[in-house]
């Protein structure tokens, strides 16, 4: 297997342009996770968190990219999901991570929920230039 094949197998890139891409994210992510040998309930957890991030991209930034990587740390396997957009950014990240806070009239549980669902959660946002959320789940 060439290096290129190895990279392709480990990385899934999902472009988000509008809400019709969200079902596509679920379908392609589901195939990726099952190819990595990850099944329910872990796959549901990762897919739910990923869909939350994809929904945020559509809602606030209109478009963006989601990259999914298979991780390996010794015997530990994991999945990393990175959601990046060039949208308006988040003015107050701490507030956005508070339960029931929403600037769009939704439940306001997306980001804090994602943080609870995953093991690692990292958010970088600059007003006017975009947001990157990186999350990891180590498969127990």
């Amino acid at each position, binding site marked *: 297997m060439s290096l290129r094949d190895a990279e392709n197998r480990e990385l899934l890139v999902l472009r988000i342009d509008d*809400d*019709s891409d*969200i*079902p596509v994210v*679920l*379908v392609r992510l*589901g195939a990726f996770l099952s190819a990595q040998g990850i099944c*329910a*309930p872990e*796959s*549901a*957890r990762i*897919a*739910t968190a990923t*869909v*939350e991030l994809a*929904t945020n991209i559509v809602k606030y930034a209109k478009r963006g990219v989601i990259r999914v990587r298979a991780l390996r740390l010794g015997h530990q396997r994991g999945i990393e999901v990175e959601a990046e957009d060039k949208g308006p950014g988040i003015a107050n990240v701490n507030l956005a991570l508070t*339960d029931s806070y929403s600037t769009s009239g*939704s*439940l306001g*549980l*997306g980001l*804090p*929920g994602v943080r*609870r*669902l995953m093991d690692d959660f990292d958010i970088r946002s600059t007003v006017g230039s975009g947001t990157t959320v990186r999350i990891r789940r180590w498969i127990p």
Partner: protein
Amino acid sequence: MENMSPVLLMQRHEIVEADLVLVRELGSHIEPRLAEYVEHLYAWMRQLPEYEEYFADPRRVERVQRAQVDYWRELFRGVIDESFMARRRATGEMHARIGLSLPTYFAAVDMSLTILVDRVLPEAALGDRKAAALRALTKIVHIDTAIVVEAYNRLTSEKLAGQARALLELSTPVTALWEDILLLPVIGIIDSRRAQDIMRSVLQRIAETRAKVFIMDISGVSVVDTAVANHLIKITKAMRLMGCECLLSGVSPAVAQTVIELGIDISSVNSRATMRDALEEGFRRVGIEVKRIGQ
């Protein structure tokens, strides 16, 4: 690309007026001999497995050949404007509609360039400006290719959107399970569009049947995120407003766990583990007792 102006398109492909002048000059050598080009091209095309499929009718061959000659004439006019772009788009759509594959289209464009340059263009034409002229021709052909690919793309995505809509319409099979009891098995992915669709058809059926109990089974749904949960809660509330109680069934362990960790308040949702439990509850609510015969 779709809304790109000719000027922007030329900038993107780095086409300047000098290129257009060279292409016009190339055209002055090639245009009188386009009949030769058609002959060579068809000698090649006849070997393609698709040829018979598209060109069984000799009148069609004639028509397409004329169109191909017109195509190059227009390209050698060396004018890139709205009407050029519109005609290229129409060409792309036409090829996509008849189901010609993009690789075959590209192969034909590539073959055309080879024929025009190696067999039709007189050897001595343009002298030392020949290389620059051929480069200019390639750039314009690439613009053309970009427009055609875009047209293919648009047609394909229209087709996909159509299929998605069709699937959506098939996907809310609300069934009258019993008098006063309706059932909707939800399978696959719920996005906001589908949720709205479910809301609409569910309320419609409740109005028609005056059902008192609605069982929504989500055992076929693998992911319930906050947006989906929000939709389900709204659907439940709207049903209650119409005098119909919604019983949610088939919540898988994975979904139950993620919904709780997301922190969604599901206290307003009446949920049962299995569809059987929901049905028993439904019977109880509408005052029906199911008994084994002979008991």
